[in-house]
């Protein structure tokens, strides 16, 4: 991977294409669970890949950590712009998803998106990276710039917060 990144920095076309496909694959799964529409996830991922290429020469340190940081900032910008344009806040995401008809006894993608929006940024990052992107604790620690111990604590708190969210959600649906 490091060799591909270095070659891409020197504008090697093949390396650049390989790197873009790799990064797209990695980031799409991360962004997908953060936005409502698949089209938005695709657009955002594409923008992050382009941003990565634009500033590839300035990249230092852990590459995965760097691209996930770009993605994270891009998502924040996305919601900020939407809030400005349509006067909808981040809360709207929480309210919009899922549709009323959606069954609530088993976990679906949309219910998961709604739940992730209620977690802190770090908690939802840990859940996404661990359960949807299947990174191990060491990899997650490198990406997030934290220790493995901190990741374990975050994982525990995130699962607890999710559990609490779904418990309340089921209670509200039934009453």
């Amino acid at each position, binding site marked *: 991977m490091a060799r591909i990144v270095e070659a891409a920095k020197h504008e090697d076309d093949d390396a*650049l294409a390989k790197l873009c496909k790799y990064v*797209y694959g990695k980031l799409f799964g991360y962004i997908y669970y953060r936005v409502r529409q*698949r089209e938005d996830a*695709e657009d955002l991922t594409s923008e992050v*890949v382009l941003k990565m*290429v634009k500033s590839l020469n300035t990249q230092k340190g852990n590459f995965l950590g760097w691209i996930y940081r770009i993605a994270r900032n891009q998502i924040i910008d996305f919601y900020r712009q939407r809030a400005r344009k349509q006067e909808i806040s981040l809360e709207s995401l929480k309210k919009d998803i899922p549709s009323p008809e959606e069954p609530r006894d088993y976990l679906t993608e949309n219910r998961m998106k709604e739940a992730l929006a209620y977690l802190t940024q770090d908690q939802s990052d840990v859940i996404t990276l661990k359960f949807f992107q299947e990174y191990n604790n060491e990899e997650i620690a490198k990406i997030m710039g934290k220790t493995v111990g901190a990741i*374990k604590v975050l994982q525990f*708190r995130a*699962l607890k917060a999710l*559990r609490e969210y779904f418990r309340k959600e089921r209670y509200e649906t039934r009453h």
Partner: protein
Amino acid sequence: MKRDIDEVLDFLLTEIEKGKRIEDCLKEFPEYALELEPLLRLATELNDLPKPETRPEAIGEALRKVRAFVAERRQAKKRFPLVRFFSLQPAIVRVAAVVLLIVLIGWSSLALSTRSMPGDFFYPIKLVSEKVQYIFTINREGKAELRLIFADKRTEELVKMFNRNGKFNKELLNAMLNEAQSALSQSELMTGSDSKMLLEKVANLNQYQKKVLEGIRQRFCGYDTSILDEAIVLCFERHCCIQNKLNPQSGIEPDVYYRAWTRRCNWR
């Protein structure tokens, strides 16, 4: 030793991933079973969620954007090879290059300004650099010397301007006489041989300025020579004044002495 609950959760998640049943896992940590059971079930549900698949068309679209950007950047680099060269250098080299460029521009501006005359583009830079030089000179003798040098420069400029267009520049006349007066004032702040040496230098300069003004007076074709006459008289009075200071027995009227010593010129 009792393990932290987050450690236990992580350990059990790994065990479940390997194929162990939740119930069997919890038997190992009965003290945490109640709290961990719903979390492990939730984790299993999360693992079962479908992983989002990427669409080849979407990846193709992203690649198309990247290629368009890279092609545009390559074109720009071809158009501006210097920009390309600098964009490839490390940040420290780029900063050093910018600093060097600023120093070069500053140095060449200063070099060009030394020969400039009033009305030239670089003349204000010359005056500013003189002021800076004066500010950064700390000792009194050095400041007095600078005053003499500046007075000498203004006198030279006055002559050159007169030779160029047959007119005398009043601002230069003011400046040359005022710089000499400033040097005189500096002598008061000194004592002993330093003061005497400076006064002798000012006396020489004053005599030179007087001769220059007399020369211009003879060649001047304008009808109003009153300013030049007044300036020549001032030089004469200053000469008397300096001689009196150097040789107190020579005797000079106090009001003449005061006028010559303190007068700042402001002819317009």
